[in-house]
């Protein structure tokens, strides 16, 4: 006869015993013999320990979590598309003839998904025009047939470079817009009077969204090793968290305003935003 252990009871509690074993154990628990009563008491104690007393409250996630996830996924998707484009447009051999280059461009045209082939189309058109130009000269003057030389590296890199540039500009525009929203909020807090708590209250949702996106941009800046942006975004994040957690007490707001002035955060944000805008121009 099987000796039932506490481990069997735990497995029974979680429904992890096989149907046969569970039936056997339930039969044993239902008996009125002394060992069965002891086992039943043990099982009751276990159920009590693993019951409602083990509640573990989980706070609600930030309301902007799903937006943040989708923003990160969209940025990753842009990076993926850029990488894909750079792989497709890099030619495999260094000494391709004009004919094979044109063939390669044609096959690339059909290989690239629609919507990503504007750069390739441009490169192909340039190649075709050059080809037509030299074909015209060759047919006009058969004696001096020119050797076609195309700066292959330049043509190849045009697509991916422009694609990466576009992705970077989109990201910088978003970061700049984020910093400007942060600046507006911090200006409101810095200049706020006694009604500051009432002014901030309707903006709680916006503050939470700013915190979420700030964390996203900070992580991206960390990945790009942009130390200056990381540092400013870190300071902005801690300030936003403080604002979000400050209650209606005027003294708390005044203390926050003093800390904000000491950190010179508004000035730092302005400097970083100007730098980003210069890069965009």
């Amino acid at each position: 006869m099987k000796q039932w252990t506490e481990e069997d009871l735990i497995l029974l509690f979680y429904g992890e015993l096989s149907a046969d074993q569970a039936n056997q154990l339930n039969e044993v628990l239902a008996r009125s013999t002394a060992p069965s009563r002891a086992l039943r008491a043990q099982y009751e104690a276990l159920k009590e320990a693993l019951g409602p007393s083990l509640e573990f409250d989980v706070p609600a996630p930030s309301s902007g979590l799903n937006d943040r996830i989708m923003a990160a996924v969209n940025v990753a998707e842009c990076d993926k598309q850029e990488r894909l484009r750079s792989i497709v447009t890099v030619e495999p051999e260094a000494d391709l003839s004009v004919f094979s280059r044109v063939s390669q461009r044609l096959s690339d045209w059909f290989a690239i998904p629609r919507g990503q082939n504007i750069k390739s189309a441009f490169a192909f058109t340039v190649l075709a025009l050059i080809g037509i130009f030299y074909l015209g000269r060759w047919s006009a003057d058969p004696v001096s047939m020119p050797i076609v030389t195309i700066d292959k590296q330049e043509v190849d890199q045009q697509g991916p470079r422009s694609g990466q540039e576009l992705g970077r500009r989109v990201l910088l525009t978003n970061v700049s817009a984020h910093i400007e929203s942060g600046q507006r909020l911090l200006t409101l807090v810095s200049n706020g009077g006694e009604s500051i708590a009432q002014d901030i209250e309707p903006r709680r949702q916006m503050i939470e969204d700013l915190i979420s996106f700030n964390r996203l941009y900070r992580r991206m800046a960390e990945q790009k090793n942009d130390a200056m942006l990381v540092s400013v975004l870190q300071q902005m994040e801690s300030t936003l968290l403080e604002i979000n957690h400050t209650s209606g007490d005027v003294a708390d707001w005044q203390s926050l305003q003093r800390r904000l002035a000491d950190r010179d955060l508004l000035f730092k944000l302005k400097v970083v935003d100007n730098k980003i805008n210069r890069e965009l121009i």
Partner: protein
Amino acid sequence: MQTEIELINLVKAGDMYAFQRLVELNSGKMFAAAYRILKHKEQAEDCVQEAFLKVHLKIDTFNQQSTFSTWLYSVTVNVALDMLRRNAKHSQCSDYDFDQLSTPESNGPEKAAWISDIGGVTEHAINQLNDDVRVAFVLRHYEERSIGEISEMLKLNPSTVKSRIFRAVQRLRKTLNSLEHKVGEYETVD
């Protein structure tokens, strides 16, 4: 209303709205699992974000042999475990002072605070478990994943998962018995 499988097929075809729908359907559950493992709201959110990024990147490799939910849990739990390992280098878990639970001598605010602290003790008792043991327990007890699924997620033998769950239950019961003893003391005073 599209089923999960339909949504996954749409995502595989490049439909971002379908992916957004999958995020909306699952992010709450994944956040709860991540929070119970990481014990930190912001880190749990970062974990869920990273997990969904990985899922989006690898959705083509999802072959529907396991359920999407199990796969998603698997990715989330493994990201959370990586974060725990990284955190372990930077921080140390503080020991909870159970003497703080000295029984109040009267009714009123002290009593209310003491009673509310009991819930905190339960949570802390779980947090005091060794990470490996706690993760297995959290997945079985709170996330209601079977031992088979947990062993698949954590890439462990089912007997190892069972043994971790047994250890977790034993440790928790010991802690809760100590709490019961404190409650007894309190009732005597009251």
